[in-house]
Every structure is written in structure tokens, then in C-alpha cells.
């Protein structure tokens, strides 16, 4: 049914230019990388064990990933002993880890190294060298009890001393914050300027409290900074830009992860409906269920395209300022919808702890809430689009 019976509607508006991603979405090198990572995870990742151990992730898998995939060195520039890859390359790993809900500090480390690489300061380069060579993990400590993820309202303080900086304040909802080796922290100088700092998790000036997270596959911590020793990593050009970059990349990475998880969750539904027999036939042969899956496929296709667009647009001036916000909203919403349908369409088995359906459901809800709720981000998108009331 490819015939269509009518004219295209005409248009009179000012369109946006096509100065946008137009190359094949998956270059061969990247496809090979995807396959390598997928093989690696299929062989070594055990989600259930990882999510129930005390660390909330598998240190052995991380160590192996450092050795075999260069997970910490991926986005570290070659000048710092890294692999010098792009954010879009890192997104391939984020997607493959996300597809399987692998508990890992990977996403935050990818984003943090991308931000540090963009800082271009000696301090950032020293840290990047250490991250690459030592295989360190980095957590992003952004949200605060009062401010949430609203950068303008962040209140943590950075004080200057002869020897460097110290941080004071409280952060929360820090993914893998209780176990990461380093923390990337936006904080305000005494002049009120927002800057990016890095502290060592082992520093005596910080206290980390692990919280029981809704999403078992991503542990969350509260972190109290009491004159924790820190390094300022962004240059003189202006910290607000680097904080905006951090926020944008986190949102984009969450979008990529959500879209990939939505795709694999949908595949799980389709597989189940194709093998599960009731009334003497495969459940998936019932049109009512087919149509629900088709609607999910439309959502997932839109989410994948949006995540792809946001990824390819990173660092490209052509992208709208709120593309990452839009992408996170669209992709996290898609994941939650697919995951909710997954629980329903699996029937009773989907309500059991042993089945993975609830892990996708919890990841979906968590990703909707992390780095700004759907409502908050929609408001930002609307304002940037001139849709304010």
C-alpha cells in the first residue's frame, strides 16, 4: 500500500534550513564499534548480579570495559592519552549499555569526559589523562535540594584559596555518586559565577550517602560538600557555557539511552507475543495487540530519530538551543510508554520481579525525572520556541 491519492499541502511559512545531519546515520566504523560493544556486553554483563551488589554496578565489568573497550578513555583527547573519539561515538556505548540496562557509570563518565575535553584547560587535561590511564569513573553532581537541575538556581559554593578551591553545599540524585572515583560539580564562586569543578570522591571534605533508588539499575547518592578540595576545570571563557554543555550532553545521553532501551523493550514485547500461545494461537497474531505494538513502533522510531538528531547536532550551531531538552522529553516518554505496555502485554509475568519488564518501567520513570521533569523541560522548549504565554 504505497499509493497516495492526493496533493502535498502547500506551505507559505518560513521553514528551517536543511543544514542538518544528512550523512548516513551509522558510518561503518561506528556500526563495527556497536557490534563490538554488543558482543562484549552479551558475554560479560550480568544485570541482575550487578544491580544487587553493594556498589550497584559490576566493578569487574567496568575494569574489563576499561581494558577491552577503553570506556574511560573513549572521549579523552589523544593529547591526554585517550582515544579522541567524538560524543557521537560515545553515544554508541551509551545506547548499547542502555539497551541492556547495564548498571554502569558509563553514561556519566562519557558525558564528563566530553565536557572536560571541551574545557581545554591544563587542569582538565591532567584529569583526563588520569581518567584515561587509570580507568577512573566520573559522576556528575548537578542537582541540589532547592534548585533541582535548574542551573540558574544552583547554590553550591566554591571558595578560592591559595592552594586551589574548596566546595561547600549539597547535591542529590547523583548517579553512581557513591562509588565514582571523581565528581564533576557545577558550583558558584563568591562572585556568583557558575563554574565547573572536579573533586576526588576520596576527599575528606565530602560525605556520600547512597539512596535506595526506584530504578535498581542506576544507584543515586546524596553528597554533602564541606570544604571539599576541588579543581576548577573550565577556562576563563565563561563557566555558564561549560555548565550548559554539561546539561545538554547529559540530556542528550539520557535521550540516547532511553531510545535504545525503548527499542529493546519493544523487541522483548514482540518476541514474547510471538511465542506466547493462548486460545490456540500466538498472542501476537491478534490484531488488537499488533496495533498497540505498531503504535509503539512509531513512538520508538520518532525517539530514535530524535536522539540521533540531538547527538549529531552536538556542537553544531545549527541546532536549536533546546534540542537536548526536547530529545530527553521525547525519548524518556517513549521509553516509559513502551515499558508500561510491556508490563501489561506480558500479563502476570510482567508484574513479577524476576521478569525484566519492571526494570524498563523503572528506568523509564527515572529517565523522565532525571535532569528535569517533562513539564519543566517542555516549558524550556516552549519558551525557546517563542510559545510562551
Amino acid at each position, binding site marked *: 500500500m*504505497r499509493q497516495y491519492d492526493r496533493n502535498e499541502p502547500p506551505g507559505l511559512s518560513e521553514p528551517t534550513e536543511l543544514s542538518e545531519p544528512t550523512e*548516513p546515520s551509522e558510518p561503518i566504523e561506528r556500526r563495527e564499534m556497536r557490534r563490538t560493544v554488543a558482543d562484549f556486553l552479551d558475554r560479560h554483563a550480568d544485570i541482575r548480579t550487578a544491580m544487587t551488589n553493594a556498589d550497584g554496578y559490576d566493578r569487574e565489568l567496568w575494569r574489563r570495559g576499561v581494558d577491552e573497550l577503553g570506556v574511560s578513555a573513549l572521549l579523552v583527547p589523544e593529547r591526554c592519552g585517550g582515544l579522541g573519539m*567524538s560524543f557521537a561515538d560515545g553515544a554508541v556505548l551509551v545506547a548499547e549499555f542502555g539497551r541492556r540496562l547495564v548498571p554502569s557509570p558509563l553514561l556519566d563518565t562519557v558525558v564528563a569526559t566530553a565536557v572536560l575535553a571541551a574545557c581545554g584547560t591544563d587542569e582538565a587535561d591532567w584529569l583526563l589523562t588520569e581518567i584515561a590511564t587509570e580507568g577512573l569513573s566520573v559522576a556528575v553532581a548537578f542537582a541540589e535540594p532547592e534548585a533541582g537541575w535548574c542551573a540558574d538556581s544552583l547554590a553550591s559554593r566554591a571558595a578560592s584559596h591559595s592552594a586551589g578551591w574548596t566546595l561547600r553545599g549539597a547535591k542529590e540524585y547523583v548517579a553512581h555518586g557513591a562509588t565514582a572515583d571523581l565528581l564533576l560539580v557545577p558550583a558558584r564562586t563568591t562572585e556568583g559565577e557558575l563554574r565547573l569543578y572536579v573533586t576526588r570522591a576520596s576527599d575528606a571534605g565530602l560525605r556520600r550517602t547512597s539512596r535506595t533508588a526506584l530504578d535498581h539499575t542506576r544507584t543515586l547518592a546524596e553528597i554533602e560538600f564541606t570544604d571539599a578540595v576541588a579543581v576548577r576545570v573550565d577556562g576563563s571563557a565563561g563557566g555558564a557555557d561549560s555548565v550548559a554543555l554539561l546539561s545538554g550532553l547529559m540530556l542528550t545521553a539520557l535521550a540516547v539511552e532511553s531510545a535504545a532501551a525503548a527499542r529493546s523493550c519493544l523487541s522483548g514485547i514482540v518476541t514474547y507475543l510471538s511465542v506466547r500461545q493462548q486460545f490456540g494461537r500466538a498472542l501476537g497474531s491478534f490484531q488488537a495487540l499488533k496495533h498497540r505494538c505498531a503504535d509503539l513502533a512509531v513512538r520508538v522510531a*520518532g525517539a530514535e530519530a530524535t536522539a540521533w538528531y540531538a547527538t549529531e547536532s552536538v556542537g553544531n550551531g545549527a541546532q536549536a538551543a533546546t534540542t537536548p531538552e526536547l530529545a530527553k522529553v521525547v525519548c524518556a516518554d517513549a521509553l516509559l510508554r513502551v515499558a508500561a505496555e510491556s508490563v501489561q502485554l506480558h500479563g502476570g509475568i510482567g508484574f513479577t520481579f524476576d521478569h525484566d519488564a519492571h526494570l524498563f518501567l523503572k528506568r523509564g520513570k527515572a529517565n523522565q525525572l532525571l535532569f528535569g521533569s517533562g513539564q519543566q523541560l517542555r516549558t524550556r522548549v516552549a519558551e525557546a520556541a517563542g510559545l510562551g504565554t
Partner: protein
Amino acid sequence: MSAGLKLSDADERFRLRARAWLADNLAGEFADVVGTGGPGREHQAVRRRRQWERRLGASGWIGLGWPKRHGGQDASLLRQVVFHEEYARAGAPARLGHMSEQLVGPTLLTFGTAEQQARFLPGILRGEVLWCQGYSEPDAGSDLAGVRTSAVREGGHYVLSGQKIWTSLADIADWCFVLARTDPDQTRHRGLSYLLVPLDQPGIEIRPIRQITGTSEFNEVFFDGARTAVDNLVGAEGDGWRVAMGTLAFERGVATLGQQIGFERELNAIIATARATGAIDDPALHARIVDAWIGLRVMRYTALHTLSSAGTGPSGSEGSISKLQWANWHRNLGELAVDVTGAAGLVAGGASDELTEEQLLFLYTRADTIYGGTNEIQRNIVAERVLGMPR
């Protein structure tokens, strides 16, 4: 390893050339056709739009993607998209020749004989000959294999009997490409043939169908002893299903990029209305406006993603995902359009007491989820062919 995010210089020059040509030609002589022929206004300025088709053809804008040896330009998919966008941006009129250019033309390029190509392609490229599509029938809508219109061979001709329906442009087209049953002993998709039939003959009657918009885009076409020469059979007799289905129409996921410029114009008009009526201050309506805006972006990214994967990724059934995506979005937009007008949407408010743009959009977009394969059929296709669910 980063993707190039810009058009090449050559493609950008192509864009500027298209833009300049459209601006020049839509000023002055063709200023009256700007914006005509849209949803619910299909019969505006038909005579002038036929002239416009000739102007397009004379300047080589028809058949951009066709091979040069057949009179086309060998333009890349990207350039076809660029032209589509510029065409929409310029407010050029709704095409009358799209079925000629995008359906029967490519079919003839793939399945036609050298004689058929030499006879029919030039008229399409010049924008002189208009075609319509004779597939659907009263009992063969979503289930096209149920076609019953018969074509019986008599000497050097086929003689057709039966009825087609939902035939856009039949009232003004010169030719119709018809799926007809040439072997009455075969059922379903076997025994069908793809025939080119001239419309101006005694055995054909065309009746417009009055739609819920009050206007008529679609027609019924009655064949009662209509004739066409056996030379006008495309592909082998009985092979019509393969010919009809084998035509890869211009990739819809890509074509929608031009269409989306029209969508954006409609959304912008709705936002302007919402500001004027104060509806934008209603939190529920505002949320729907924002979601519509976001949905339009997602459709754009989906189309760009499809375009970027063209030639490498899976194709074909992706068109069904795109169709579901935009048809539902557009139908929802039609509801939003009337809602932002408030109670004024109860009565006609256009010039000379016609329905308003919002009312027409509301009504017209009900067709979007029906024609070209209903939402229900598209969902079947997505479930079975994209997701691989059991039949």
C-alpha cells in the same frame, strides 16, 4: 568521524537556484496561483495550475530524480528533498502532476517498454499530460487485491467494465493508470493487469464525490465498455500486482519534509489565533500547542533520519511509520485548530460565509488517516513487516 551537517556547496547552489526560479516565476504572471489548491481547496485555480505545471516542466523541474537518458536530471534524493522544501516554502500551488511524476512515471521507467517510455514520459516531463490513479474500488479499499474491474481483450484492445473510486484529479486528468482483472478465473492479486487508459472516451463517466468539507477532491470513475489499446498494457498480462506494488514512490518519509513546511505554516496560524483569542493562556490548550510543536520537530527528525539512512537502512515499510506519525499528528492539529478558536468554531466565519481555515483543517484532516492506506492497514503493515509479528 563527525557527520557533515551542511549541504555541500553544490547542493546549496542548487537550493538557491530552485529558490530563485520559484520566486521569479511565482511573481508576476503566476502570482495568482500562490497558496492555491490546499486541503479543502482542491479545485482552486485548476486551469491556472495546469499552466503552472507546464511552466515547471518547461524549466526541467519535473522528473528531477529521473535518469537523464529519459529526460530527467539524475538529481540525488537530497536535491529532490531540497526542491520539495523550496517549493513548499515559496507557497507554490499544490501539484496536479504528482501522480504523473511520482507514480506512473517511475512505473514506466521500471516496467514500461521503450515505446511506452517514448510515448508517455515526455508529456509527463513537460507537465502537459495529467494522470490519475485507478486502484481503489468500492469493494477494494484497504484490500486492493479484491479489485473487480475487468479488462477483456477484444482484438487490439482491452475493454473495461467496472468502477473505481477515490480517484483524485480524475475530473481533470487525461489518462488513468488502472489495475484491472484480465483473468476472471484468477482471484486476489493474481490475474490483475496494469493498464494505461485514456479518460476522454465515451465508455467512461466521472462523478465527483462531495466530501465532508463540502468540496470535491475525489471522484468515482465508471468504466462501461471503455477501451485501451493492448500496447498500453504495462508489464505482462496478469502481472499487474507486481507492477503496481513494485513502484517505489518517492520515499514518503522524505517527501514529508516538504509537507512539513505546510504543517508548520498551519501550526503557526493556529498559534497566532490562540494568541488572538487568548486560548494560549489556557494551560490545557497551551500544553497541546507545545506538544504539537514538539511533534512537528520529531517528524522532521524522523524524516531526516530516514533520509540519512537511505540506501543503507531498511526501506519500504518505513513509509507506514511515517504515514501513521504525520497522519495522526495532522488530525490532532485539526482538532486543536478549532479548539483555539473557541465558540466561534460553531459557525462559518470565512469570506462569503464559507468554513474557516480552522474548520476546513479539522474536517479535511479526517481523510489523512484514511487515504493512502488507513491507519489500521498501516498498523498491520508495521506490526507484520517491520516488527515481524505473526499473521
